[in-house]
C-alpha cells in the first residue's frame, strides 16, 4: 500500500510492515521492513514525513487519513528544554483522558533520540501500563516503544488497590521508592500520574508528589496537560520556571468507567495467565499490612465452635479472632471476659479468599502478585495462586491488598481496610 505524506490514524488490532519511506509514530521512527502490531482497543497516529511511504497491512480499512498532526506543536519544545535545563524528573499532571500516557510515550521516544536514557514511573494504579493494576511500576528504556504495555517493568510496588484513595501512605511510599530507583538508573524520570486532580484527595496527592520531588533534591519539571486551565490550582505556589503548560492531544478521548474496568480486567487476565499454586506455612512467612499473624497465637479457651484462629494483639488492639461466621454479641462478651480484652477484631474465613496480595522477598522487594485461594487454620497453611513465570522461592513476606480477584482475573469486590 502506498501512502502519501501526511498524518494517519491506525486502529487495532492491526499488523503493519513498513517497507520504505520516513514514517514515525509517537516520536518513534520506523526502519524499513520493521513490523509492528497495534493491539485491540489501541489507536496510534502515523506520521509520514517523506513524500510517500510503502506499508503492508492486513486491513487497510483501519487506516484513516487525518487533516493535521495529532501531536500538538508545543510538545516538540519539551525535549530541548529538558536537555538544556538538565531536568532529571518530569511529572505530568492532567485530568483523566488528557493523554498523559501518550505524552509519556512520546517524551520517552524523543529523549531516546537525543541519547538520553529515560525511565517512566507509571503511577496510574487503575489504568496501569507498566505492571498490573494496583501497582506502581517503573521501566527504564533503552529503545523506543509504541505502547508502554510492551515493556516489562523494571521494578514494581504494590499499592493494594486500583485507587490511591484510602491507600495514600503506601502510594507515596511506593512513589518515593520507585522515583529513587529511576533517578539512580536513568537520566530522566518521566512520572505519569493518575487523573485525580480535584478535591481534597487529588490536591493532596499531587502536592505531596511535588514535595517529594523537592525533598529528594531533584531538578524537576511539572508538565500540565490542560484543555482550559483546569489544573492551575495544583501549581500556584511552584516557581514558574518549573512549569510547562501543554495542549492536550487531539487523540485524547474519554474512556467510560465500564471500559476502564474491562481494560483493567484485560491487563489482570494477561498478568494472571498460566498460574501455579503455592503453599506457605505460617512459620515460613511474615505478613505485611495486616493484623493476621502479627500477634501472639493463643488457644481457644471458649466453647465457640466457629472460631478458627486466635491471636492476642499488642496493647489496646485487643483480640484477633478468625471465625467461620461473624461472632455474635453474646460470643463477643464471652471472649472479652475470658481474655480480658475490650476490642475484638473479627474477620471471617471468607474475607481472606480471593484477596490480591504481593509476594515480597526478605528485603521487601516485589516478586509478583498472587491471589489467596484458601487458608488452612488447623494446619497453619496459606494457599495462593500466582503467575508461574515468577520464581517464588525467595518469598518471605505476604503483603495484603484490599481487592478481590477471581482466579479467572475478574474483579470480585473488596476487603475492608483494617479487617484482615
Amino acid at each position, binding site marked *: 500500500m502506498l501512502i502519501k505524506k501526511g498524518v494517519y490514524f491506525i486502529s487495532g488490532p492491526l499488523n503493519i510492515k513498513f517497507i520504505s519511506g520516513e514514517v514515525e509514530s509517537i516520536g518513534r521512527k520506523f526502519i524499513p521492513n520493521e513490523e509492528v502490531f497495534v493491539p485491540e482497543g489501541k489507536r496510534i497516529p502515523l506520521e509520514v514525513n517523506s513524500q510517500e511511504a510503502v506499508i503492508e497491512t492486513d486491513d487497510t480499512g483501519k487506516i484513516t487519513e487525518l487533516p493535521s498532526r495529532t501531536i500538538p506543536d508545543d510538545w516538540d519544545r519539551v525535549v530541548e528544554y529538558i536537555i538544556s535545563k538538565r531536568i532529571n524528573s518530569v511529572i505530568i499532571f492532567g485530568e483523566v483522558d488528557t493523554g498523559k500516557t501518550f505524552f509519556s510515550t512520546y517524551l520517552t521516544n524523543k529523549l531516546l533520540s537525543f541519547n538520553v536514557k529515560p525511565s517512566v514511573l507509571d503511577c496510574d494504579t487503575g489504568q496501569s501500563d507498566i505492571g498490573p493494576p494496583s501497582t506502581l511500576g517503573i521501566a527504564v528504556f533503552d529503545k523506543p516503544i509504541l505502547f508502554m504495555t510492551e515493556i516489562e517493568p523494571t521494578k514494581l510496588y504494590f499499592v493494594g488497590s486500583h485507587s490511591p484513595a*484510602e491507600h495514600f501512605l503506601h502510594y507515596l511510599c511506593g512513589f518515593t521508592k520507585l522515583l529513587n530507583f529511576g533517578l539512580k538508573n536513568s537520566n530522566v524520570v518521566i512520572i505519569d500520574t493518575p487523573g485525580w486532580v480535584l478535591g481534597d484527595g487529588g490536591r493532596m496527592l499531587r502536592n505531596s508528589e511535588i514535595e517529594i520531588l523537592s525533598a529528594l533534591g531533584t531538578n524537576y519539571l511539572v508538565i500540565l496537560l490542560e484543555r482550559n486551565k483546569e489544573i492551575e490550582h495544583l501549581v500556584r505556589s511552584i516557581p514558574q520556571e518549573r512549569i510547562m503548560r501543554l495542549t492536550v492531544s487531539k487523540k485524547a478521548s474519554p474512556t467510560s468507567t465500564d471500559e476502564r474496568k474491562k481494560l483493567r480486567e484485560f491487563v489482570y487476565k494477561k498478568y494472571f495467565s498460566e498460574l501455579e499454586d503455592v503453599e506457605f506455612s505460617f512459620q515460613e512467612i511474615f505478613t505485611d499490612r495486616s*493484623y493476621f499473624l502479627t500477634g501472639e497465637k493463643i488457644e481457644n479457651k471458649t466453647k465457640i465452635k466457629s472460631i478458627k484462629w486466635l491471636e492476642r494483639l499488642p496493647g489496646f488492639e485487643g483480640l484477633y479472632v478468625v471465625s467461620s461466621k461473624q461472632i455474635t454479641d453474646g460470643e463477643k462478651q464471652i471472649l472479652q471476659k475470658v481474655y480480658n480484652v475490650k476490642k475484638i477484631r473479627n474477620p471471617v474465613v*471468607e474475607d481472606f479468599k480471593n484477596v490480591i496480595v504481593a509476594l515480597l522477598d526478605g528485603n521487601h522487594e516485589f516478586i509478583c502478585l498472587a491471589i489467596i485461594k484458601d487458608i488452612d487454620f488447623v494446619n497453619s497453611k496459606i494457599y495462593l495462586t500466582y503467575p508461574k513465570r515468577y520464581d517464588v522461592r525467595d518469598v518471605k513476606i505476604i503483603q495484603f*491488598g484490599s481487592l478481590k480477584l477471581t482466579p479467572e482475573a475478574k474483579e470480585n469486590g473488596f476487603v475492608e*481496610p*483494617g479487617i484482615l
Partner: protein
Amino acid sequence: MTYKESDFPQLLEILNGYRTKGLPLDEIVKQTYELYKRVPIYIGIVGMCMEHFVNEITPNEIKNGDTIVIMDKNVVYKGKVQLKKNGKIKLKNLMVIQKKTTQDVNIKNKKIYKFNYEVLEKLWPSLSFKHKGK
C-alpha cells in the same frame, strides 16, 4: 492494604451498633456531627466519645432535664424529662417510634421520599459486585 487510614469508618460502626439496638439515631447522629465539628482532626476521639454517649440506666437514675430513650416492646419513646413523680415521668419534645406490621396512610398533600437501594448499581456499576453477606 488492610489498614484504615482514617478513624472515620469506626464512626459508622458505632452508629450502626446503636441502630441494631433499635435506638433512634437522630440525636446520636447530631451529637456525632457536632463533636466532629469541634475536634475535626481527632476522629478517633469523636468515636471514643460516641461509644460512651448512650448508657443504659435504671429508673432510679433518671433526673429532670435528662434526654432519655425508653424502649418498650413495639414502641420507642425519646424525649427530655420534664417531671419525674411517683415512678412516672413526663417527657417533652417527645418522639415516638412505633413498629407496626401494616398501616393505612393518607398520602394526599404529603411530602414523600423513597429510598433507592440500587444507587451503587445505577451510579457506579463497575463497583457493584455480587454481595456476599457474612
